[in-house]
C-alpha cells in the first residue's frame, strides 16, 4: 500500500511555478470569502514525482503486456501519435479562435470525418461525442428528433440481450423504453422474437455488430429489412468495428446510425478509462439531425456551420475530444487502405486461433468461427469449486491481465476474450499455455486459485464492503 499524497505532507513548501505578480492591486477583499482551507497536499516537487512514480509501478498497462479484454479492444498505441498530439499547434488552440487561425484543426476534423465515412459507408459523421456511450446517447437523440420531426410517436428501443451494457442505459437516459430481444441458441438475434416484438411503436433496433459473443449476424440483411419495414431505424453499436474494417461497410448494408469508439478501433490510449471519443455516423436521411457545429469545406477554406434547424443541438460544449481525434487521424493515415484491412484480418485470425487453443480446456457455448473476439465459459471448473473470478485473478499472478468476465450475461461463467491484431502469435501461445496451466491447477489444487492473486501489490479486494460503506475520500483529520 502506498501512502496517500496527503500523508506525504511535511512542513515545507511547494515549488514556484508562476512568475512573481507584477500587477498587485488593492480591493480584492470582496473575493476572499472562503472560510475553510483548501487543504491541498503540501509536498515538494520531488515528492510529487516519487508519489506518482510509485503509483505508476502498481499499474498494469498495454506497454507491459497483453490485455485480452473482450469488447474493450486494447491494442498497441503507436508512440509517435503521442508526439504528434502533443504539438503546440494542436494542444494550444482555444476553441473560440478565429477560423483563420485554426484551419489545420478544421482540416483534420474534416478529413477524419471523410475517412470514417469511407471506412463505414455512412454519409456523415459528427466527432462531437466524447465516449462510446456518449455516441450511443447522441444516436438515440438523433432517432428521437427524427421521429418527432415526422410526428411519429415511437417510444420503444429493441436491444438484443447480447448488447453492450451501456446500450439500454443510453436508451433510458434519452427517454426511450428499452425492450430486450433474446438471442437464439446460436447466439444470434432470434428473428422470430424480433418479428413478434417489433411494431409501430418501435423507434430503433439497437444492434451490436459483430455481437458481444463475437458473432456476425448471418441474417443481417433480413433483420434490417424487418426493422425498416416496421418504419424503425437500425442503430449499430460500432464498438466492435475493428472486426469489420475493410470487410463490411455498415452504411452499405443500410445501417441508419452508428457510433465508433476511436479509442478502441483506431488506437488511442485509454488512459485508465479515458478520454475516449465516440463519433456518430448517419446515412443521408438523418444528416440534418447531427450535433452542431459541422465543419464544411468551401474551396480551400474550412468553416464551422451551425445553421441546422433540425440538429439535436450540442452534446459537448465544444467539438469533442479534439486531441484524441488527432491520434486517431495519425493512425488512419499511417495505415492507409491496406493497413486498415490488415487490422481486421489479423484481429479475426488471432481470435479464431486463440479460441481453438483455449477450447481444449474451457467450454465454448458458441463454437466458431468468431470475428475479433469470443466468449469461453469456465463452467466446467465449477465442479472443482473454481469460479471464473478465480481464473481471472490467477492470470494476474502469471503477469497477464484478465479477460472481461461475467459478460455477456447470457453465458454462464463467461470469459470474453479479445486478443486484438497487434499481439503476435507467440504471445497468444503463451496466454493459451497459461490458461491451460490454470485449468490444471483448478483440477489438482483449486486452493491456489482461491488464494490468487498473490504476486500483485494487493490481494483480492473486498468490493462488497466498499459498496456497503463507501469511503470516497481521504479524511481531512488524517492529512497532517
Amino acid at each position: 500500500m502506498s501512502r496517500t499524497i496527503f500523508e506525504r505532507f511535511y512542513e515545507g513548501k511547494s515549488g514556484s511555478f508562476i512568475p512573481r505578480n507584477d500587477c498587485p492591486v488593492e480591493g480584492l477583499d470582496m473575493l476572499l470569502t472562503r472560510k475553510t482551507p483548501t487543504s491541498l497536499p503540501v509536498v515538494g516537487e520531488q515528492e510529487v514525482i516519487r508519489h506518482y512514480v510509485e503509483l505508476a509501478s502498481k499499474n498494469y498497462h498495454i506497454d507491459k503486456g497483453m490485455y485480452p479484454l473482450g469488447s474493450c479492444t486494447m491494442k498497441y498505441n503507436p508512440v509517435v501519435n503521442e508526439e504528434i498530439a502533443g504539438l503546440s499547434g494542436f494542444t494550444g488552440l482555444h476553441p473560440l479562435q478565429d477560423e483563420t487561425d485554426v484551419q489545420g484543426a478544421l482540416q483534420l476534423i474534416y478529413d477524419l470525418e471523410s475517412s470514417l465515412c469511407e471506412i463505414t459507408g455512412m454519409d456523415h459523421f459528427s466527432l462531437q461525442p466524447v465516449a462510446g456511450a456518449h455516441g450511443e446517447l447522441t444516436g438515440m437523440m438523433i432517432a428521437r428528433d427524427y421521429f418527432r420531426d415526422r410526428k411519429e410517436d415511437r417510444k420503444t428501443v429493441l436491444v438484443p440481450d447480447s448488447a453492450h451494457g451501456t446500450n439500454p442505459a443510453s436508451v433510458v437516459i434519452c427517454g426511450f423504453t428499452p425492450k430486450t430481444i433474446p438471442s437464439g441458441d446460436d447466439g444470434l438475434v432470434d428473428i422470430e422474437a424480433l418479428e413478434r416484438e417489433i411494431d409501430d411503436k418501435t423507434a430503433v433496433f439497437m444492434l451490436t455488430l459483430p455481437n458481444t459473443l463475437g458473432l456476425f449476424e448471418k441474417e443481417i440483411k433480413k433483420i434490417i429489412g424487418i426493422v425498416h419495414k416496421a418504419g424503425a431505424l437500425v442503430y449499430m453499436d460500432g464498438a466492435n468495428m475493428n472486426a469489420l474494417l475493410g470487410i463490411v461497410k455498415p452504411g452499405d448494408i443500410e445501417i441508419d446510425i452508428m457510433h465508433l469508439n476511436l479509442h478502441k478501433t483506431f488506437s488511442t490510449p485509454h488512459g485508465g478509462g479515458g478520454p475516449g471519443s465516440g463519433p456518430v455516423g448517419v446515412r443521408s436521411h438523418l444528416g440534418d439531425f447531427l450535433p452542431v457545429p459541422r465543419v464544411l469545406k468551401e474551396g480551400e477554406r474550412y468553416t464551422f456551420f451551425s445553421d441546422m434547424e433540425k440538429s439535436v443541438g450540442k452534446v459537448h460544449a465544444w467539438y469533442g475530444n479534439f486531441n484524441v481525434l488527432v491520434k486517431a487521424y495519425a493512425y488512419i493515415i499511417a495505415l492507409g487502405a491496406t493497413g486498415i484491412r490488415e487490422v481486421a484480418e489479423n484481429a479475426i485470425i488471432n481470435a479464431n486461433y486463440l479460441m481453438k487453443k483455449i477450447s481444449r480446456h474451457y467450454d465454448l457455448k458458441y463454437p466458431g468461427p468468431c470475428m475479433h473476439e469470443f466468449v469461453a465459459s469456465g463452467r466446467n471448473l465449477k465442479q472443482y469449486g473454481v469460479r471464473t473470478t478465480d481464473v481471472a485473478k490467477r492470470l494476474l499472478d502469471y503477469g497477464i491481465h484478465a479477460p472481461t468476465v461475467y459478460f455477456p450475461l447470457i453465458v454462464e461463467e463467461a470469459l470474453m476474450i479479445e486478443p486484438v491484431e497487434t499481439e503476435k502469435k507467440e504471445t497468444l501461445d503463451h496466454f493459451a499455455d497459461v490458461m491451460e496451466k490454470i485449468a490444471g491447477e483448478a483440477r489438482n489444487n483449486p486452493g491456489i486459485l482461491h488464494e490468487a492473486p498473490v504476486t500483485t501489490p494487493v490481494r483480492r479486494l473486498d468490493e462488497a464492503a466498499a459498496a456497503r460503506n463507501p469511503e470516497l475520500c481521504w479524511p481531512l483529520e488524517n492529512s497532517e
Partner: protein
Amino acid sequence: MSYVQNTDRDRKEMLGYIGVSSFDELIEPVARELRVKGDLKLGLPMSEAEVVSHCAALARRNSPASEMASFLGAGIYDRYIPATVRYVLSRSEFYTSYTPYQAEVSQGTLQAIYEYQTMITRLTAMDAANASMYDAATSLAESLLMACAIKRTDRVLVPAALSQRIRRVLESYSAGRHITIESIPWKDDGTVDLDEAERLLSEKAAAVILAQPNYFGLLEDASAVSSLAHGKGALLIALVDPVSLALVAPPGEYEADIAVGEGQSLGIPQSFGGPLLGFMATRKEYIRKCPGRLISATVDSEGKRGYVMTLQTREQHIRREKATSNICTNEGLCALAAAVYLSTMGDDGFREVALQSAAKSHRLYEMLSGLPGVTLPFGKQFFQEFVVRFDGPASRFLSRAKKSGILGGVSLEDDFPELGKGAVLVAVTEKRSLAELELFRDIAAGKEVRV
C-alpha cells in the same frame, strides 16, 4: 506503417491450426455480397516520417492561443501547466492502462483517482466527488437529470447569464425526459434577479442552478440564491470555476446540494476544447444517485488498504434498464492531470494562481475604466473575467488587437445581443504580464500599436 506483428508465415500456420484454407473461408458467416469489393479509398500507407511531417504541417496551419497574449476564456483558459503534469501523464503506466476492472493490478490509477476525488471534495467543501466526467456542460446536464430524479419533478431554473454552449447541451439532454428549463434573468448589474427567481419558484422546481462566477465573470450572492432555492424545496446546483474556489466561498459553505464544473484549468491544455474534465461533487445522501464512476477505499483479503470502483449498480453492469448513468469511458487521465496539478501547486501555489488571475484582471479593469469609447457595464464584483463594451462592433476591436498579437476576448454580440454591440468577454489568467495588459489598454484606447 503497420503495427501488426504476425508474419505471413504466422498467419498461414494459424489458419492451418484453425482448419481453414484461407481468410475468406474464415469469415464465411459474412455473406460475400455484403463484403467490401476492392480497397477502401484511403490512400497509401505512410511511413512514420511521412505521418509526422504531414501532421506537423497541419499543426503549423494553426496559430495556437497558447503562443499569443490570449484574453480568451468563456470556459477554456490559458494557464501555466507545471512540467510535473506532463511528466506523469506521459508515463505509459498511466496513459496506456485501461479502466481499472481488475483492481489488484490497477492500484496506481485507482489511488490517484481516489486522491483526485478527495481534492475535489476539499476544493468544493462537499462530502463526496465522482471520478471524473466529460466536461462541465455534460456534468451540469447530468446533475440536472439527477436533481429531477431526486425531486421527482421536471422543472429547473437556470441563470440567463449562462454559457449558451452549455445551455444547448442542457437542452439536448433534457428533451428526452421532458424537462422544462426556464431562465432567471439578470439585473442591470449582471447578476441573478432574485425577485424574478422567487417568482419563478412559486411553481415547484427540482433545482436552481447557480453559476459562480456567472458567464460574465461576476460573483453572485450565492447564499441568497441558496436560501431561496431551499426555501422552496428545490436543490441548489452550483456550477463553479475550480480556480476561483481558492478565494471565494465554495459550494459546501453555502449548502449547495450538487457542485459541478470544468477542470480544464487544473493542468489540462486547451486542445481546441477537448479532452476536458467535468467534475461533480455532492452531499452524502445523494452519492447513490450520482452518475459516473466512483472509487472507494477498501481492504484486501489480508486487511491491507486498497482501492476499487464502487456502486457500479448505478451503471451499465446490473439492472440495465434502471441504470441512472451510461458513463463508461470517463476522463480518467484528465482527472490524473488535475490531481498532479493540485499536488504540485499545493495550497499556496494554487492560491497564487487564483490571486494573480484576480489581481491581473482587476488591474486591466482599472486600466480600461474611463478610457474614451470603452464602457464597463457590470462593476467590479468579478473574479478573473469581465465584460467590456466598445463603441463600434466587437470584431473591430478584436481584429485590431490580433494585428498586435493579442487575442482580445470573446465577442458576446451573437449570444447576448441584449448587451448591445461591441460587448466582449475578457479573461485574464495568471499567465498574462503587465506589459500585455498595457498593450491591451493601448489598443482599447485606439492607439496605433506596433509589435
